[in-house]
């Protein structure tokens, strides 16, 4: 079950990264992204009309509060930081043909360990070092958590969809147990970890509320993209993903690569948790689970596992979720409408990509 790009896709992907992307290509891409989004907005608008809400007003607020107001764009960019790390981790896994669906568990455990360690470290070492240590701990814990699926897949051939889903259910519960029983802040009645003071969190960018985690997230996803497309290591992972038997035949150490993939992917998910906690939240509450993974997975696929495209889609998701919440409140629509909107956007984007691809094919033939 190869999830590497469909035949034609990897060819185009290779073309796209060969640096020969012309202006027309970029324009085309832009059209092929904005067009479908517009179409999706029209469809969702019909639903709004049906429930008696002015779609134009709604979208006006989405744009204003998610994108064009200084406050809105700052919120949007801040929201992107953990999503970018998650997307980076998923790109590694999916390109290597491993369905790491355990991102949420890895994310939460990373978040909890970062939240538990940062306030302690901050007391005993310079704050920059403390934060680095917390990031490292979050990453390592998430990596260790992925070891079971990794080993089972590498040496027993046990399908990782089952194991990672299992581990994510387990990880969510374990994170709760840790918060409630082990790392609980004795100073509050509400079960949560100790809070990292605002001034000790990741610095904000310039005079804004944007977390510098955004920069780390961007760096992570771009590095991942370059490694996967330009290096021997990335190619080896892609070979394992596209045809594991060919990988064995070619003499690649498939078990070791498999474990590496899980470690990197989970490590990035753990960092996503850490960057959310250390950058924004400051602590972890019991039963907290933002379940970012579910929205990031389709974004990564729509981006065809291309890091730069993924940044775009993550940005889109953030605008929709920040702006959608605000618009819903102002117009008296339940916030659940945002889910419907995201869903329609995803489906229409997928459709558009398909028709674009078909058109491209028929032109070449």
């Amino acid at each position, binding site marked *: 079950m190869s999830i590497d790009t469909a035949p034609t896709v990897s060819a185009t992907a290779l073309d796209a990264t060969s640096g020969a992307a012309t202006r027309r290509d970029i324009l085309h891409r832009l059209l092929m992204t904005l067009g479908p989004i517009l179409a999706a907005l029209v469809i969702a608008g019909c639903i709004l009309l049906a429930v008696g809400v002015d779609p134009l007003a709604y979208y006006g607020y989405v744009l204003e509060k998610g994108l064009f107001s200084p406050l809105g764009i700052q919120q949007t960019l801040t929201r992107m930081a953990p999503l970018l790390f998650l997307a980076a981790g998923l790109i590694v896994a999916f390109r290597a043909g491993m369905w790491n669906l355990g991102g949420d568990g890895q994310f939460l455990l990373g978040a909890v360990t970062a939240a538990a360690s940062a306030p302690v470290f901050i007391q005993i070492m310079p704050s920059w070092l403390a934060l680095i240590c917390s990031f490292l701990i979050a990453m390592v814990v998430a990596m260790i958590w992925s070891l079971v699926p990794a080993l089972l897949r590498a040496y027993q051939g046990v399908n990782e969809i089952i194991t990672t*889903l299992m581990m994510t259910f387990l990880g969510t519960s374990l994170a709760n147990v840790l918060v409630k029983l082990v790392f609980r802040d004795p100073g509050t009645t509400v079960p949560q970890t100790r809070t990292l003071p605002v001034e000790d969190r990741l610095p904000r960018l310039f005079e804004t509320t944007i977390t510098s985690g955004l920069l780390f997230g961007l760096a992570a996803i771009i590095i991942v993209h370059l490694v996967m497309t330009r290096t021997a290591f990335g190619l080896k992972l892609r070979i394992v993903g596209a045809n594991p038997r060919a990988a064995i035949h070619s003499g690649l150490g498939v078990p070791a690569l498999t474990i590496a993939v899980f470690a990197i992917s989970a490590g990035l998910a753990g960092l996503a948790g850490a960057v959310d906690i250390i950058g924004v939240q400051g602590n972890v509450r019991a039963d907290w689970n933002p379940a970012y993974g579910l929205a990031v997975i389709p974004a990564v696929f729509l981006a065809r596992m291309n890091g730069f495209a993924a940044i775009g889609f993550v940005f889109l998701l953030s605008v929709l979720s920040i702006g959608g919440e605000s618009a819903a409140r102002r117009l008296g629509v339940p916030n659940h409408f945002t889910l419907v909107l995201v869903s329609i956007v995803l489906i229409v984007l997928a459709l558009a990509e398909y028709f674009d691809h078909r058109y491209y094919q028929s032109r070449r033939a």
Partner: protein
Amino acid sequence: MTGLFSEVFLSALLFGAVTAAIPLLLAGLGEQMSEKAGVLNIGIEGMMLAGAYLGFVGAFYSGSLWLGFLTGAAGGAAVALVMALLCVRIGLNQIVIGIALTLGLEGLTALLHHFQFSRSYPRLPAADATVIPLLSDIPVIGPAFFKQHLIVYLAVALVFGMRYVYRRTQLGLNLQAAGDKPAALDVAGIDVVRTRTIAVLTTGALAGLGGAYLANVGAGLFIPFITNGAGFLGIVLAMLARGRPIWVLFGALLFGVCLSLTTAMQVAGINIPTDVIQMLPFLAVMIMLVLFGRRASLPAALGIPYERGAR
């Protein structure tokens, strides 16, 4: 502690386990069918939600549970139709569409509930049970297993029906071929797209029925997000069962029993955080996988759209 675990109580626990297992069973059986035919149906949670909502609407307005099950199954199948069109017919990415459908139906059913029921919270009367004579007189087990709504027996019968289909009919062969080597099925003169469409629609109907059961019998009402991840459990069950319906049944019961065990342990006054108890079924499955994990035999073409003559 004496008398705590009265016969009635034990039997209620078991009854609860069965009730909790049925939606998982139906979802798992459905997912299994899709997977057999080569479609990874991640949208099953959405199909269950559609089934739960429409099933409740049907039962509530008509006053008939059976009509509710019917509308629920139809609702699930309607969502599956979208999935079949997008993923089977034109070959869009199954994961993108699956997740999109789940998100969309979470939002849509919550919206509809908001406008329709969020002031009145209508609830259905108790589902009447079909009592199986003699068997239901067995202490503890009898009332739990043999005093259930007729649909429960049908769901269990479905396990054997599925088993028959997979092992003894051409359709079973077709499904397996569609998942393992669709091109071979195609050149044998069977339309792969149609076969997979049938599988996905069946999945939708079963998931919808599971959702309807959850809402109408399990809860007796509909509220947003009522499925709480049951669809994802269904995916896990289907994968663990590796094509065998019987194993879906066992798996679903294991989860159901673990849920009731949580209650039992609390009532017994065993002071363990619920989070820890909740981990039990997953831990059990992980340990089984570690100990007995064999080479997974998922269908070779799982998740890959079929296009005739493509290289």
